[in-house]
């Protein structure tokens, strides 16, 4: 399962489909409609940006796609798996093997070294120790962090931490990378660095990318498609031609 081949960017099959996806929370007396009837499709190999102001429901949609949350109603189908119907156990397997996630606050475990953080998903996947170490080094090599693998996250800069998080997201070779404001805690220079890597994953490894951001400029620069959300509803869905300097597209 860890060796699932990367989906080709060109194949155009539907990777993610949601139909009338709803997620409501109850806070005391009031019902909060975080996601309110979102229907969308993302093709395999696409780089999609989810845009909206805070509270628009973009992170909630991402959590539903990530299998971290379950919809109140509607469905979200990722690579033919109806996430709403998966058991807790199968949902965990889905998160382990199909999805890689990066967050605004990096979410590395502070008590572990970079290498241990990166290989943690492999422990859950019960990969052998020797193989684990090789894969972790390989992933760290890819993000240029091999030299700092024995450091703890606290000893790294924000950019380095996010690179470590990217390496961890990559380790199980998932088809899907979900990024929740990946540059939100970084200065523009390191943000660009991280985004180039994400784009590299998209282009070289053929990973499908869904990135949540509130920075329209960032989305315009990297995403092939921009989906706008407000008050939990999809208000706009438009293609975009990334205008990266010297971009290969």
């Amino acid at each position: 399962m860890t060796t699932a081949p990367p989906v080709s960017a060109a194949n155009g099959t539907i990777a993610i489909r949601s139909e009338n996806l709803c997620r409501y929370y109850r806070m005391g007396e009031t019902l909060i409609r975080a996601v309110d009837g979102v229907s969308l499709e993302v093709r395999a190999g696409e780089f999609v940006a989810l845009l909206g102001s805070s509270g628009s429901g973009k992170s909630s949609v991402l959590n539903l796609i990530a299998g971290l949350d379950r919809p109140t109603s509607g469905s979200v189908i990722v690579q033919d798996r109806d996430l709403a119907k998966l058991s807790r156990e199968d949902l965990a397997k889905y998160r382990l093997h199909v999805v890689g996630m990066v967050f605004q606050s990096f979410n590395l475990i502070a008590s572990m070294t970079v290498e241990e953080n990166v290989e943690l998903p492999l422990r859950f996947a019960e990969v052998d120790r020797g193989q684990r170490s090789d894969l972790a080094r390989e992933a760290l090599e890819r993000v240029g962090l091999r030299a700092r693998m024995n450091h703890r996250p606290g000893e790294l800069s924000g950019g380095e931490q996010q690179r470590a998080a990217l390496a961890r997201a990559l380790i199980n070779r998932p088809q899907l990378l979900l990024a929740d404001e990946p540059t939100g805690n970084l200065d523009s220079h390191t943000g660009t660095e991280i985004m180039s890597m994400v784009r590299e994953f998209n282009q070289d490894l053929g990973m499908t990318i869904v990135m949540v951001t509130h920075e329209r400029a960032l989305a315009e620069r990297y995403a092939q498609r921009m989906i706008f959300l407000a008050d939990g509803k999809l208000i706009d869905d438009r293609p975009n031609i990334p205008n990266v300097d010297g971009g290969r597209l």
Partner: protein
Amino acid sequence: MKIPDLAELALRNLRESLLRNSLTTIGISVGVASLVAMLSLGIGLQQLASRRLVKSGLFDTVVVSSRRDLRGMGREQQREGPSPGESRVLDEPARLEIEHLPNVIEAYPDIRFITELRYDDKPHLTMISALPSSAKSNDAFEGMQGNFFSSDTAPEVILQKTFAEELLGKTPARGVDETNVADLAKPLLGKELVMRYAQRAASPTQPPLAAAEPAADSRLAEASYSVVSREQKLKIVGVADLDPESMRGPTRAKVFLPLTLAERLHVMQPTDLREISRAASDQPVYSSISVRVKNPTQVQAVEDTIKKMGFTTFSLLDASQSLRTFFRVLDLFLLIFGSLALAVASIGIVNTLVMAILERRREIGIMKAIGASDGDVKKLFFAEAGAMGILGGVVGVALGWAIGRIINLGTNVYLRRESLTPDNFWSVPWWLVALAIGFSFLVSLVSGLYPAARAAKLDPVQALRYE
């Protein structure tokens, strides 16, 4: 997750909040220590008691008597020969048969009679009993002055302390039991006693000790014997501090003869009157024999076998059984009291782990986000609880061992000061070590149930939002 990974992560997590987890582990250690200390004392006391009892020779002994004796006075004799297996004569072949049963060390006749002993030309009437040479190892001879019989046939005698006092004309002061045996023994050892007794002689036509063909019951019934008065000189070789037969009920003897010597004397015994038939031939017939069994645990089996042979048996097993029950209850109480501390410690584990969940909420969220299942999280918390349990168990056993040891040493210092013999009443057998660590592990796992379930149920979205 694989077990080595679980263990590694659990230990890492325990190290992360070292102080809190150490304190919890110490709590478990104290619980286990109290359990081990309590039980080791309980077991030690029990072993001490059974050591004493085994040494006393009371609990490995079965007393066998013929069933006819119980019916009394030979009335049943007139019946057509008793049905085999139901009633048998307790004669020499029967004794040999019993002696060759498995797990039987020896079977010797009980010879006891009341007769007159002369010392310094003064007559003293007393109960005399015969002792086999194996009685030498008996507890009662620990503080004996002089020696045990030089042989099984030697014309020698061992006196019990009170009889020695009687011979010397001393009146034992009531309540004061501190007469020094050595003082009593000094004037008596090596001196001679004259025993006057009634010999049971067979009909003069038959030669004595002609262990002839076993006579039929009918012939026995018609036989008769004569009583001859005899004298035997005996040398005092020892004075015993305790009564070797102190627990044998009302027929307490104060003077002891070597067994074979006593047998050869053919002393008229009180029970002989019941079965006149016995003296028909000189084939020895016994009123009762004592059977020594290798181990008190085999007493029951041997007793059952002998009963099937058609004899009546008696042993102090029942007494030892109630003693065992007593110790079982004592152990149970000690276990309960010891477990109380462990129960308190287990609440400490619950507390620590619940705290850990609050503290590591975000970490749990991260693990779930990158693919940890509920089971993984649950197992991780179990592993942490289990690690604390095993660690606490090991430290606790060591601590309990030390506590028991110190109590034992302290008590022995006290006993020595009170000029009593120190003894070991503390024991930590291997099974107790294993049991304590296993129990501690189990208790900690049970304590981990609730925190682990709670951690596993954590909603990752909520947990990740938590700062």
